[in-house]
C-alpha cells in the first residue's frame, strides 16, 4: 500500500488503483456526515479535487492522486458516511481508478515513510 501527503492510501487491485483515506485522516476529520464522490467514467488529472467529505467540524476535499479514469465508486459510504470513521482502510474505500502507468505509484510514500510523516 502507498500513501500520499494528502493522507490518502492507494492499493493496487489488478490493473486498478483503489483510493481511500488513512486512519489518521479520519481521526483528524472527526465524525464524517457526508461524502460526495465523482461519477463513474470521469477523466481526472492528478490534483483535481474530486471528493468532498464533510465532518461535524468542516468540509474538506480529496484530490485525485494520479491521472486516469474513475471506474468504480463506493456508494456504501455515501449512504452511511460513518463507515469512513469505522473502517477507513477497509470497507470505506472511496473510488477505484484506471491509471495509464502503475509504476507512477512508486513516487508515493510506503507505510514507514507515512508513519514518520504523521507521528
Amino acid at each position, binding site marked *: 500500500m502507498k500513501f500520499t501527503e494528502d493522507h490518502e492510501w492507494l492499493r493496487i487491485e489488478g490493473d486498478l488503483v483503489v483510493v481511500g483515506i488513512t486512519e489518521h485522516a479520519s481521526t483528524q476529520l*472527526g*465524525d464524517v*456526515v*457526508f461524502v460526495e464522490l465523482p461519477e463513474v467514467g470521469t477523466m481526472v488529472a492528478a490534483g483535481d479535487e474530486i471528493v*468532498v467529505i*464533510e465532518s*461535524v467540524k468542516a*468540509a474538506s476535499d480529496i484530490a485525485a492522486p494520479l491521472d486516469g479514469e474513475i471506474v468504480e465508486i463506493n456508494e456504501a459510504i455515501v449512504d452511511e*458516511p460513518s463507515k469512513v470513521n469505522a473502517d477507513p482502510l477497509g470497507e470505506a474505500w472511496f473510488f477505484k481508478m484506471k491509471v495509464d502507468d502503475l509504476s507512477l505509484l512508486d513516487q508515493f510514500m510506503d507505510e514507514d515513510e507515512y508513519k514518520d510523516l504523521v507521528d
Partner: protein
Amino acid sequence: MSELLHLPLEALHVELGAKMVPFAGYSMPVQYGLGVMKEHLHTRAAAGLFDVSHMGQVILRGADYQAVAQAFEALVPVDVAGLGLNRQRYGYFTNQAGGIEDDLMLANRGDHLFVVINAACKDADIALMRAGLPAGVTLEVIEDRALLALQGPLAEDVLAGLNPAVRAMRFMDVADLDLAGATCWVSRSGYTGEDGYEISVPADAAEDLARALLSDERVEAIGLGARDSLRLEAGLCLYGHDIDAHTSPIEAGLGWAIQKVRRTGGARAGGFPGAARILSELDGKAPRARVGLLPEGRAPMREGVELFTTAEGGHPIGRVTSGGFGPTVGAPVAMGLVARDHATVGTQLYGEVRGKRLPVTVVTLPFTPANFKR
C-alpha cells in the same frame, strides 16, 4: 496576535484527552475522546459537563438593586428592574442602529446585578457598560471564578448528589449553593436546549468540582464542538454568527426578550440604544427574519451559504448564519437570515453549496424540543 489565555481547568482538559484550540483568545477544549457526535448525543441522553470559563462574569453594584437595574435599562431593552430576586433573564446590548452588540444573561442577586457576557465581546461589553452607566454604579469583572455548565436530562440527579437543593430550582432560578466544598453561584439554565445548570465556582475549587461531577458515570466532558451543534439544534443564537451589530433583535426573532414594560405603551418604554427601530419592527416590519432551515439532502449547509428562491439565476434573498450536522436530528440543520417575504414555514429555498443549488425548507425552530424545568 496576542498570547493565548489559559483557564483554570486546562490541565484537567488535557488529562481528559481534549483537543485544545484557540477560541476567542483562549485555549479551549473543542472535543474529547468521544468526539463531537457522541458528546452531543450523550448530553441529550444523560449529562454533559462544559467548561465555559472563557465567558465574562461581571458584578454591578449601586445604592441598591433597583438603582443598578434602572441604570442598566439604558443599555438593554429588557425589564431589569422588574426581575424577581434570584431570577435570571436573557438579554442583549443594543446599538444606536438597532443592532445587537452582544447577548447576555443577567440575574437579580439582591444587592447586585450579575451579568454573564460572551468571551469574544468581553472587552467591548465592559467598555460599553463603563461608558453607559452612571458614576454611582461600580463594575467588578470577576477574574477569580471559573464557569461550568452541567447539561442534560440527568443533570438534576447528578448535581443533587452534591447538593439536593438544586432540585427545587426552576428554569432561570439562581442560588448560592455549596458544591464540593465551595460556595457556587448556580443558575438553572444553559445553552443546549436541555435542562441543566450553569455554575460559577471559585477558580481554586473548580477542578475539585469538575472531578466530583466527572466521577459520576452519567457525566461526560463535552467540548465546544458539541456545544455548538447542541445550541444550533436548540435554535439558540451564537453572537457574531446569527446575530451581530447589524442584526436587529426583531429580525433575529428575539423580540420575546423585550418585556411589555419596555415596549411602546409600557411604563418604561424605550430608553435603550436603537429603540426607535427596534420597537417599530416589533409590529412585524422587520425586513429580514431568522429562520430554521432543513436541507433536503445530506450535505451540510454551513455559515455563509447564500439562499435563493429558484434553482437557477436570481439574487440571494438571504444566507445561512449557522449550519452543520444535527446529531440528534440525524441530518443537516441550519439557521439563516432571509428576506421577510421568504420566511414563512414551509417555503422552499435553495442553498448554493460548491456551486450547486440544493433544496432547503424553512422550518420552525427549535429542531429538538426544549427540555427545561419550568
